């Protein structure tokens, strides 16, 4: 199959189409406008729905309504817009609605900027809205992966009756790479919960209000059980772990710069490996723990002030050293910046 040259945002939109997405609701925000613009052209041609909402609040609730009828539906936005959608996300998680949400993240807090940032890691993985809930969060590092993971997100959403987030950033969203439009075969899951009109059956209800004694506790236990079951979806990319004394970890587009730094260090003979979480929630705790048990130290590199590093530390429970190398949003680090830190880590005695 001949590759096409597309932006990351376009790859996400194409992945959604390949997975049979029927409805898109969104509100304009930089740097992700290529997603709605492509879908505005393509969805109606396929009998689907494209609707630009009056706000992110409305877009997320339109998504809630569409998802409740059992169709494949999505929205996309960037950081400030995702904050506005958080209310509906909490409801969608509580109502157990399958839907796909894309965050092409930009710098924050506040209006921040429009450069690449990973400052929304906490927001994505800990649940942006109120209550005990999580998204299943996937983070691609290439344009091909953005396409594949978006398509997979629709399956996972239906498999677990669960909103799934693609967390990427302005860097991947705006850059171009070759993409092979691999054919996707959407999986089929039962929709015996969907609101399609109560013909031949009693009316169904999707609700999150539980006032009876113990009802809300049972509800939360059910959700937590599902989140634990989602651990089987954990994916990582590991590289050069053989003989590594230091493992550098990063996610998303930044992981590619980090990988280059790891290559540089290996060429110079430093015993360093690379581990990239692809699922950010559930977090690949076991993968980190196994390395920690083998005595490996960690360096966590992020385009924020240090967020994922907390999950790495939780995973290994203080059994080995975890250093943070944060790059707050502004400029992207060069591989050499990370290489220097790798050398420093390996030269310094173990704490």
């Amino acid at each position, binding site marked *: 199959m001949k590759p096409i040259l597309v932006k990351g945002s376009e790859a996400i939109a194409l992945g959604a189409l390949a997975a049979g997405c029927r409805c898109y609701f969104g509100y304009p925000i930089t740097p992700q406008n290529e997603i709605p613009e492509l879908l505005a052209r393509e969805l109606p041609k396929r009998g689907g729905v494209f609707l630009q909402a009056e706000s992110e609040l*409305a877009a997320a609730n*339109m998504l809630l309504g569409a998802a409740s009828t059992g169709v494949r539906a999505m929205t996309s936005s960037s950081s400030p817009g995702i904050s506005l959608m958080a209310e509906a996300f909490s409801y969608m998680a509580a109502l157990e609605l399958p839907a796909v949400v894309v965050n092409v993240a930009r710098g924050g807090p506040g209006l921040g900027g429009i450069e690449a940032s990973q400052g929304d890691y906490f927001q994505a993985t800990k649940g942006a809205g109120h209550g005990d809930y999580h998204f299943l969060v996937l983070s691609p590092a290439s344009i091909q992966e953005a396409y594949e993971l978006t398509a997979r997100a629709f399956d996972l959403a239906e498999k677990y009756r669960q909103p799934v987030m693609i967390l990427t950033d302005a860097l991947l969203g705006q850059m171009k790479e070759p993409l092979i439009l691999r054919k996707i075969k959407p999986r089929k899951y039962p929709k015996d919960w969907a609101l399609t*009109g109560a013909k031949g059956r009693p009316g169904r209800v999707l*609700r999150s209000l539980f006032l009876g004694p113990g009802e809300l506790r049972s509800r939360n236990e059910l959700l937590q059980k599902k989140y634990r079951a989602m651990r089987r979806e954990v994916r990582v990319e590991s590289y050069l772990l053989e003989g590594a004394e230091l493992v550098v970890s990063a996610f998303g587009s930044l992981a590619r710069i980090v990988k280059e730094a790891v290559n540089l260090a290996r060429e110079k003979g430093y015993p360093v490996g690379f581990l990239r979480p692809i699922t950010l929630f559930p977090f690949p705790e076991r993968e980190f723990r196994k390395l920690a048990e083998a005595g490996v130290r960690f360096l966590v590199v992020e385009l924020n002030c240090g967020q994922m590093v907390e999950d790495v530390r939780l995973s290994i429970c203080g059994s080995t050293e975890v250093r943070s190398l944060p790059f707050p949003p502004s400029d992207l680090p060069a591989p050499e910046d990370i290489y220097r830190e790798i050398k420093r880590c390996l030269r310094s005695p173990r704490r």
Partner: protein
Amino acid sequence: MSEKSQKVKDYRFPRVLRDRPFHYCPGCHHGIAHRLLAEVIEELGVRDRAYGVASIGCSCFLYYYFDVDICEAPHGRACAAATGAKRARPELVVFTYQGDGDFAAIGLTESLHAAARGERITAIMINNTVYGMTGGQLSPTTLPGQRTTTTPEGRDPRVYGYPMKVAEMLAEFPGVAFCARVAVNKPKRVLEAREALRKAFLAQIEDRGFGYVEFLSACPVNWRLDPIKAAEKVDELAETFPIKVFKDEI
């Protein structure tokens, strides 16, 4: 069918309603509005493709009473959720059931934009001039001088402005096909309200546009009145909020 048997039919318990006591306070008008809604859904034969959006407020338990598919929406977002459901499955007959706080305060943007787009949905707003569920606070439709728990000296227009006239506003939108304000404090008005509801559903069933019915509704507990006096007070509300069909393109 003879006129007599037709009348008998009208007094049956609507099949769309579940046989369950309402949780509403004595003298509250939600019960009458619920019954009318159930009757209209049954009469139009759309029970099997009805999709209701329950909002946040006293009527959030809509699904306890209606034997149709019902989804809960966050506070104020009912018209957005309804838009999503209707666009996803246009064969559904989609309605929202909201209070004045839900529809006209926190959700005004979603409500107005759904109307402006001419969404093929039916929106029902129960206007009782207060936040009922939270204990009777100021709402966008509270009358000047009306005492609420957050305006203990009465609504002062210099502080809170004037009541929002939603039906009048919506009637201006070309996307709205039917728009009326009704009341249910007198038998004749109940019948008129039923007809308005029917037309507000026909607006979407016949693909004409957005349908809207606003119920002036008594809230005896939060008005600190007994049910009879509260029903009488609805006439006072009607001086500010005229009971009227503002638009009828059915």
